């Protein structure tokens, strides 16, 4: 097998990838996940499934992945370092691979203070870079995190990580990205881009170090439904930069939702056409998955390419 996953095949064959993000439900039914898979499967190459995002308890990322897979949509399993120690992480990822998951996104995870169990103890036995590193080693050297040999059937994930060009210290974000790539990250998803100028500066530094040649960078975009959503992102979400001009544009729009979609499409087109080194787009339509087909169509990214894994 030449490629570990469809997402890897898309990226390494040189296509401009389209991924999205699905937050599992706060209940124990798969009906919404199945519906999402049905709506999205022809419009995106893969879908991240968040792992208790913002530290709110939800149906597990791996279990949700099974439902997407059954529905014909390739999952990217998110694994945070907040809730599991090195033993649980390895056990769950062996299980995920056995269930057909092939993409893995390693992240620190939002602090539990933001969630619905703020008094929980966090784990952080390892951090996201260590997780990337040890999962790559597990695949390439057939070793558990402790160094013990995996005799057969080692999990072989296409491994990704995230980068936030809007967090500080700005220049060091590129060094840290390099560290993630050095640790083994093969694809990188960025935080939602609203401040295009800052993202361009970030990508300039990324290209200067040749990082875009060493990993596939997918720029994050977030379609906004209203100026209030923009304001919330601007003021309440750590690690985001939302320019005032965007908030005002949505505020003055007659139809805020279609304006939000228009903004998102402009962003995708701009990134695709003008910012070198970006290999795909990651659309985070937080609880607004229905809008993704329209965005993908209007951004000129439909139909999605067919790829062979072998």
């Amino acid at each position, binding site marked *: 097998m030449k490629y570990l996953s469809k997402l890897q095949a898309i990226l390494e064959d040189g296509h401009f990838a389209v991924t999205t993000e699905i937050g599992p439900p706060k209940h124990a039914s798969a009906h919404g996940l199945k519906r999402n898979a049905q709506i999205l499967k022809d419009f995106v190459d893969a879908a991240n499934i968040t792992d208790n995002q913002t530290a709110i308890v939800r149906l597990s990322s791996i279990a949700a992945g099974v439902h997407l897979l059954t529905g014909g949509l390739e999952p990217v399993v998110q694994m945070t370092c907040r809730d599991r120690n090195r033993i649980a992480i390895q056990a769950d990822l062996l299980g995920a691979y056995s269930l057909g998951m092939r993409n893995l996104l390693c992240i*620190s995870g939002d602090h539990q203070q933001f969630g619905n169990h703020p008094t929980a103890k966090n784990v952080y036995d390892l951090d996201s870079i260590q997780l990337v590193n040890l999962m790559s080693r597990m695949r390439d050297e057939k070793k558990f995190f402790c160094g013990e040999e995996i005799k057969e059937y080692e999990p072989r994930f296409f491994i990704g990580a995230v980068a936030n060009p*809007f967090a500080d*210290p700005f220049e060091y974000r590129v*060094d840290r990205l390099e560290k993630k790539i050095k640790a083994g990250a093969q694809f990188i998803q960025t935080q939602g881009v609203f401040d295009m100028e800052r993202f361009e500066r970030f990508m300039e530094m990324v290209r200067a170090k040749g990082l875009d040649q060493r990993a596939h960078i997918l720029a994050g975009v977030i379609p906004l439904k209203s100026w209030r959503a923009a304001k919330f992102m601007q003021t309440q979400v750590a690690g985001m930069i939302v320019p005032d001009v965007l908030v005002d544009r949505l505020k003055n729009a007659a139809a805020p939702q279609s304006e939000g979609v228009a903004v998102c499409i402009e962003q995708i087109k701009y990134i695709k056409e003008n910012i070198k080194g970006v290999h795909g787009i990651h659309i985070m339509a937080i609880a607004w998955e229905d809008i993704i087909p329209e965005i993908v169509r209007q951004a000129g990214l439909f139909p999605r390419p067919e790829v062979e894994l072998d």
Partner: protein
Amino acid sequence: MIIAQQKNIKDIAVMVEACEKVLLVGCAGCVTVCLSGGEKETEILASALRIMRKLAGKPLKTSTYIATRQCDPEFITPLEKLVGDADAVISLACGVGVQYLAEKYPDKWVVPAQDTLFAGGSTEHGRWDEKCGLCGDCILHRTGGICPVIRCAKSILNGPCGGSQNGRCEVDQDMTCAWQLIYERMKALGRLRDLTAVQPLKDWSKAMGGGPRRMLREDLMAK
């Protein structure tokens, strides 16, 4: 040093409500320096408890003693007579001192007057900040003398995480991002290269979580 904060006096009073005579034991160590359990605070607490009980119509007798250190058997042995006369002992030391007293005087009701908070120091008058996580495996030589284990809310060893903006931690805007500080210091020292190495997994077995830790120095032990 250990930083401790006195409990609400009402909570302390409840712990000894059945007693007629209590001994309050302060400590001349850390809690004197952080102004929560030294001589002055011990006397104030004793008189406050007496006033409360007098107003409640159930007077309380108190005696006080300041141990040089409560975390040392040598300094709590001289208390024997005072302890014998009291119905209960209120310790104003950190959690270590309370346990030393309880162990030394197994027949006596020993209660804590303090909440033991952290290992840290004073950063301005009236303010103390946590600096050391007592993790048992110091890495300050790799992080510019700033501890991410305790000063980063996620204890991240390859930080900063994506929530760091304008030098602030995502958890609290009043909290400085430890990794921002590490970055700035390493940059100023011309050692940013050191931060490019992927830091290995931490050995948490040397930290809490594996039961109480012990340090042995055979060269100092009785043969």
